[in-house]
């Protein structure tokens, strides 16, 4: 039997093994390059959504279920009549700052995020970001009951879905979405079929109030949910009963 070369780490590599080891090293490097390239270039498309620039808007603030504004004096990007969801910078909402301003005309200022019909403004800290406009009289918002619906879709945090992160949806991003929701960012329901022309709805419980706690286990999954849908101004609010929620396969 031919004597096989024997490698001892602290001695020089026996000549018979050198070619074998060089080829092994080359294969290892090639394998890493192949896998890196393949995984990097097959990543899923994070889908549209992103920053729409700084926005300064005036409108009527509603506190429930989560703070949002019906725009009365808009900008090029967000004209009058559009609904705008509100969040604070980072993973937090503006409910504490909006408390007491329900139904009043406010000025908001901050970075805008947009995905399709969904606009969200990340208001700046302090009065510069959110302040009542003294003396302005608020127009009454149109309320329309669209009846009872059973929808299929995904529960997302309104901010990441609108493009604060890319990707900002999906199960890998779920913990991040939950942290946003826990911090008070408004949850939205992204319906697989449009409702009255809209693809996203602001979520509320059956009484029209915040529902975050009951939804955390179902964020980013394909779910079925039942409840009444209301149009307030131009925003659809899905007054969903959490007990009707069903996770779809």
């Amino acid at each position, binding site marked *: 039997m031919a004597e096989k070369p024997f490698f001892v*780490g602290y001695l020089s590599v026996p000549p018979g093994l050198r070619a074998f080891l060089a080829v092994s090293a080359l294969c290892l490097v090639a394998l890493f390059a192949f896998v*890196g390239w393949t*995984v990097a270039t097959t990543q899923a498309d994070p889908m549209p959504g992103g920053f729409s620039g700084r926005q300064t808007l005036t409108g009527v603030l509603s506190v429930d279920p989560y703070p949002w504004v019906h725009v009365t004096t808009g900008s090029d990007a967000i004209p009058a009549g559009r609904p705008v969801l509100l969040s604070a910078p980072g993973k937090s909402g503006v409910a504490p700052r909006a408390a007491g301003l329900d139904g009043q005309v406010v000025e908001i200022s901050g970075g805008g995020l947009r995905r399709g019909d969904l606009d969200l403004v990340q208001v700046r800290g302090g009065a510069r970001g959110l302040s009542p406009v003294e003396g302005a009289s608020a127009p009454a918002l149109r309320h329309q009951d669209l009846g009872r619906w059973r929808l299929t879709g995904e529960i997302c945090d309104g901010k990441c879905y609108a493009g604060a992160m*890319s990707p900002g949806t999906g*199960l890998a991003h779920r913990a991040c979405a939950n942290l946003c929701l826990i*911090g008070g960012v408004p949850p939205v329901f992204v319906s697989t079929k449009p409702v009255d022309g809209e693809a996203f709805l602001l979520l509320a419980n059956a009484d029209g109030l915040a529902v975050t706690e009951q939804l955390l286990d179902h964020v980013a999954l394909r779910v079925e949910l039942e409840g009444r849908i209301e149009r307030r101004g131009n925003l659809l609010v899905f007054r969903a009963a959490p007990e009707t929620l069903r996770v779809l396969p």
Partner: protein
Amino acid sequence: MSVKYVPVQWNTNKWIYDAVVILAAGLFLWLFIAVAPGFLDHERPITPLMNRARAFGMCAFLMLTAILCIGPLARLDPRFLPLLYNRRHFGVLTSLVALAHAGLILDWYYGFTAPRIAKLEGVLIANQSYAQLLGFPFELFGLFALTVLLILAATSHDFWLKFLTPPVWKRLHFLIYAAYAAVVAHIALGALQDQTHPALAALTLVAATLVAGLHGWAAIRERAPARAGQTTDLMPIGPADTIADGRARVIALASGERVAVFRDKDAFSAISNACAHQNGPLGEGRIIDGCVTCPWHGFQYRVTDGCSPAPFTEKVPTYRLELRGKELFLDPRPNPPGTALDPVRLGQM
């Protein structure tokens, strides 16, 4: 085989080894982070920080896969043994890459909370859907794997091997398999759920199958030959002259222990097959300068007494041999490590 511990004992082979590993991982990360984004036709780019986090995660997984393949490959084909020699550095580098992945994810997905939630606390509280498979907090698998990797990296030095004793150290380092399984679950329940292209699923499956398959194959190939029933009687172990000079025949005992019967010219001696360093298979080593040299990291033992030559202090048990005609017989009772025995010699009778 050190009497004095230094952080790393470098030599040319280790430098080359580390250079190859760093080149492979570096190329992976460079392609993933700097080159590939320009080739994606997404309407909106993936956030660069997320892309980087994914690159480090996948790189760590691939490194771990490679590390776990080296063991069985070396058992199946001894030419792979040199890859085992410096595997420890490979492991330490892997844990650093994994740490970078976790750090980037924590900064991004677990950052920006107000009121502030500590990032690691966020991992524990953000998603508590333990009862469901889809939406399970897969990050916990990652956290477990990372913890194991860091513990193993921290205890990888021979100081810890001595301090914890080899059996405990070895058991601790078996955790690497649990960590690997956890990473596979981490990918399957996390990133894979959002993929639209099958590449990540296919690669993960191939990697996991390769690791499991190679281990299974090596185990089947190594299944111990029929063991002698007795534990005290002399065991016949075959003709002496069929053992090559400087090499060993490995005998499995009823107790499960293995004995390496070495030939040094016309002299035969038997020592335990398990190296005192990390249980390397001494019987697959060679006699160099009168000492059995372990194929894994090169620890040496005098073949006649199982002691490492001074200044080293490692010892392995020896076994008594008898020669009847040309047939060798082995006494399966081990002598205490370091017991000197006269070798038996062909043509002595």
